[in-house]
């Protein structure tokens, strides 16, 4: 084994320090929020809470757990995320698979249509008019359909499919599989890495998105937890602008905010480490082929 050169070791040392700092900076807000969620309102208000809960209590968790509004929004988020991700995966996989076939006529046009939307959008109001006149408002479809195909994900998947050896598929066809059969039985089982990555990409973005729901949902019982959370935080900090009627000036406890943030990001955090290994390899596999 070659011993690493001196400069390389210096580089590694510096690298380690810099990355550790980055980790600290990234982790601190999160640890702080978790600490706040277990702390007393008074300790938060006086700025005592940093890394460790002060005035430890679970009452806030109890309050939020009993808030039917929170759980309703939470349920909505789960529902929207699952439906949207399924729809997005089916459409993206089919689109990407088709695009990966070199012999397809008009393939350039199909790619172009997708890429075009990366650079140009219709704008807020035309989009709103479209969704409304299609009668999608106040349904899950208003969230699922407009975001069903993310062009970035599509291109990564397309590149991955292109990297699969064509001979495999030819063999499958000789053995009598139809196009869909080839996709479902040969290509997809070989693409678990990229599929897992895409599911993660899509579900995280649907879980975190709020603007679509805010725009297309008119009733509070349809709002996902992100909108609920946003209103809680923005309402608590921005409500005191000039001229606001006293009735507007309501305070939502700082610890309630913290608890809600923790509970909202928890599922994603739990899933992340387990899917992560697919994650890196999935994107890389596509990238090499380019």
């Amino acid at each position: 084994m070659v011993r690493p050169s001196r400069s390389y070791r210096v580089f590694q040392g510096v690298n380690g320090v810099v990355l550790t700092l980055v980790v600290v900076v990234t982790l601190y807000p999160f640890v702080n929020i978790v600490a706040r969620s277990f702390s007393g309102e008074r300790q938060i208000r006086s700025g005592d809470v940093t890394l460790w809960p002060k005035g430890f209590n679970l009452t806030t968790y109890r309050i939020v757990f009993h808030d039917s509004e929170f759980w309703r929004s939470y349920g909505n988020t789960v529902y929207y995320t699952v439906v949207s991700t399924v729809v997005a995966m089916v459409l993206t996989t089919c689109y990407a698979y088709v695009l990966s076939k070199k012999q397809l006529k008009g393939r350039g046009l199909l790619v172009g249509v997708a890429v075009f939307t990366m650079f140009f959008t219709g704008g807020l109001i035309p989009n709103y008019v479209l969704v409304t006149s299609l009668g999608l408002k106040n349904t899950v479809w208003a969230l699922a359909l407009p975001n069903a195909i993310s062009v970035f994900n599509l291109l990564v998947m397309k590149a991955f499919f292109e990297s699969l050896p064509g001979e495999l598929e030819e063999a499958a066809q000789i053995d009598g599989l139809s196009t869909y059969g080839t996709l479902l039985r040969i290509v997809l089982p070989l693409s678990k890495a990229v599929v897992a990555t895409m599911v993660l990409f899509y579900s995280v973005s649907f879980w975190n998105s709020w603007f679509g729901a805010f725009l297309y949902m008119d009733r509070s019982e349809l709002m996902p937890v992100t909108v609920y959370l946003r209103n809680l935080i923005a309402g608590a900090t921005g409500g005191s602008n000039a001229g606001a009627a006293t009735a507007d000036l309501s305070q939502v406890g700082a610890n309630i905010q913290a608890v809600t943030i923790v509970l909202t990001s928890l599922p994603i955090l739990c899933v992340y480490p387990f899917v992560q290994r697919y994650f890196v390899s999935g994107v890389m596999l596509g990238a090499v082929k380019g």
Partner: protein
Amino acid sequence: MKNEGQLSRRQILAAAGFVGLATLTGCGGGGDGGDAKDLSKKQNGAMKEYRVGQQFKASKPLSFSMLHNDNPGYPYKANWLFWKEVTKRTGITLKPVDVPLADYEKKRSVLIGSGDAPFLIPKTYHPSEVAFVSSGAILPVSDYTHLMPNFQAKVKKWKLEPELDSIRQSDGKYYLLPGLHEKPKSGYSLSFRTDVLDKLGLSLPTTWDEVHQVFTAIKQQYPDRYPLSDRWSTNTPFAVGALQSYLGQAYGVKAGWTYDNISFDSTAKKFVFTGATDAYRQMIEYLGKLVAEKLMDPESFTQTDDQAIQKLLGEKSFAISANPQELVQTYRYNLTKQVKGATIEMVPVPIGPAGPVVLGGIRLENGVMVSSKALKSADFVAMMQFVDWLWYSDEGQRFCKWGVEGVTYTYSGGKYRLKDGISLMGSDAGAPKDLQKDYGFFNGVFTYGGSWALVSSSFSPDEKKFQDAMAQRRQLPIDPPHPLESAEQEQASLWTTPLQDHVTQNTLQFILGKRPLSQWGAYVNELKAKNMQQLVDLHNKAYERYQKENG
């Protein structure tokens, strides 16, 4: 790379077509309002005789769509007694389109822009309605106030015509039904740690000079701390927005939250540029002095509210801007728990060179816009009568604020008392129910303005003392109407933002001493280079035109 050639022409054309089409449909809403003056066919459900003091009741059940601002402090519930009781009393069912408070303005713009707005659009602060005027999507409500006897009566009784004139557009009409106040209600002032003042043998200051003396005395006792560390610097382009606003008032100038590039010089009878006036400079000078003498924490201008409050609670500062609610619920509530023997009180806004005054125009509140679509409806007259009853009649206002007598409150001897077991904004911590959260009353969408008796009925003792003192002050005259035409409006908005940015940035630099006040002349010249004079001239032209056309 081979794709790029193919995607260029056909696709761009097709896409351009789509965009164009979508834009057309988007802007197609609103527009033709039908015959505006003839209301005979729009009487469905309306009352033939509807007068002040009369209960509005639709002759047949109707329903109206309404934008509802969902406050996280009391999230929307469909089973609020408020909704049921409105229907019971008036025969009207309100159909709320629920929008989270955090992004209310955004959704309102999208809904109006796409022609999908509900009939009633409350919680609109002047001048945000101006943006929608040229689209025709919003009704010029001033044409229909004859359907609203309570509104007219209150305007007349409380002499609010000059205020209403100030929100008129260049066509002489106004597009917003504002909340009406009998007396100006003040919001913000300084609060002081009174136990610390007592210890030092100081009394609460009544003028800004005394404020300076009190701060100096505190500084001598605690040289390592700042007497004042202020808040309300985030979520607003103005650093210490509240402090600047009420300090500016003492100098007779619109500053901070209330800042407006244009203000009226009543001696010269013309409009001038606010940020270049002498009064504005004096206000800056005062704040600069506080910072230079280390009486005011320079972080005040950038820190978050929470940081400022933490300094107060940690006794790193002894004074802070307050409103009556923050005083009681945040400062006093936390201070008594954390600092032994601490007391804090809010003073009536200290008096400055302008004497005991309050800024004019604060008797109008946010209000209701009506969608132009509503005019086409056969129910239009009934809707306007309903709006008049719910938002402007004494009974409607009392109902929105306190609820149902005998159920949520009792009234005797001029005092409203909540029924046992009902709390309002923490008035009774042990109560199982909350007037806002569980019943839907005292909702900011419906509850504002009204007679002084009603407005003051919910004041805490602290607020009562504060408001009573403030109500004695003389109101500064309101700027005369000077509505711009839509082309002028566009021109003005191009100039307004860079000017205001320059004012706010330099205000801060002057205060922090990063730019000496001797450069004031240079600063005014910079404003001139940013079209200050043109903007002022534009407004003066509009003012003269309005004078000529409307007397």
